[in-house]
């Protein structure tokens, strides 16, 4: 009897974790900015900031969802003026990982034209989630 319970527990655990990840992946949201932490410069990311927005992706060296995210972001910015994307190796930039509280990869920070963080998301996003986040970053009155 306890074996069946254990089996059910495993299935329930699986469903809960899968559901939680599905909810969280690609969900762009705002975090209250810690002082001094939430503006990035061209020096930080190694390329010039996009005129309207910048998509900053943090990746691990080997991470299949990171690769898929990079492909998606590259594809999205190719169709939009004034938006650029950059992929940052988390392991080689641990000080930025700590500064921005990066907990998993991929994590995407959406910056507005001045380099301030508008929203962020972890996990592989869908195209419409990225486009909505970009719309918010570009339209945000600062």
């Amino acid at each position, binding site marked *: 009897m*306890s*074996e*069946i319970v*254990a*089996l059910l*527990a*495993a*299935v329930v*655990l*699986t469903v809960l*974790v*899968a559901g939680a*990840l*599905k909810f969280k992946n690609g969900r762009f949201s705002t975090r209250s900015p810690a002082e001094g932490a939430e503006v990035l410069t061209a020096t930080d990311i190694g390329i010039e900031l996009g005129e309207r927005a910048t998509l900053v992706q943090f990746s*691990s060296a*080997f*991470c*299949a*969802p*990171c690769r898929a995210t990079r492909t998606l972001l590259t594809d999205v910015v190719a169709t939009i003026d004034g938006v650029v994307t950059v992929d940052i190796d*988390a*392991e080689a930039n*641990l*000080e930025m*990982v*700590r500064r921005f509280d*990066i*907990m*998993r*990869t*991929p994590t995407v920070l959406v910056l507005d034209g001045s380099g301030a963080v508008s929203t962020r998301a972890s996990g592989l996003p869908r195209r419409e989630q990225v486009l909505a986040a970009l719309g918010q970053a570009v339209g945000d009155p600062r």
Partner: protein
Amino acid sequence: MSQPTQVDPRGLRVVAGLTAVVLALALVTPQPVRLALLTIQVAVFAIAAFAGLRRSPYAVVFATFIRPRIGPPAEVEDSRPPRFAQVVGLVFTATALVGFLAGASTVGYLAIVLALAAALLNASVGLCLGCELYLTFRRLTPATA
């Protein structure tokens, strides 16, 4: 730097599915069968982790019976995170085996439940355990001066 081994992600899902079946059976079968299944699974994890994913008996099953029927994959994955996952599976399954042998069945059940959930998550949604755990681990290293 040499190119890391790439693997067919569909093979990974099938291997995880076979693992989940073995672990589920280990849960609901009588003790002698359970111990045999756990021993087999420990051996399979060890082979995959140390001799390479392709040497895993489950991977051989995929390569022999399934892959010829479905053709080449649309994309491939780095083999290192799944190999890390095999090591994690090995630790949990070996813990379960030792737990049952030592009479600590609660430990045994708990270890199987966690390993089974991980295998099910991998088989169903392709959960990248390495992506979730690796950075957490790296952040724990002390900040350089």
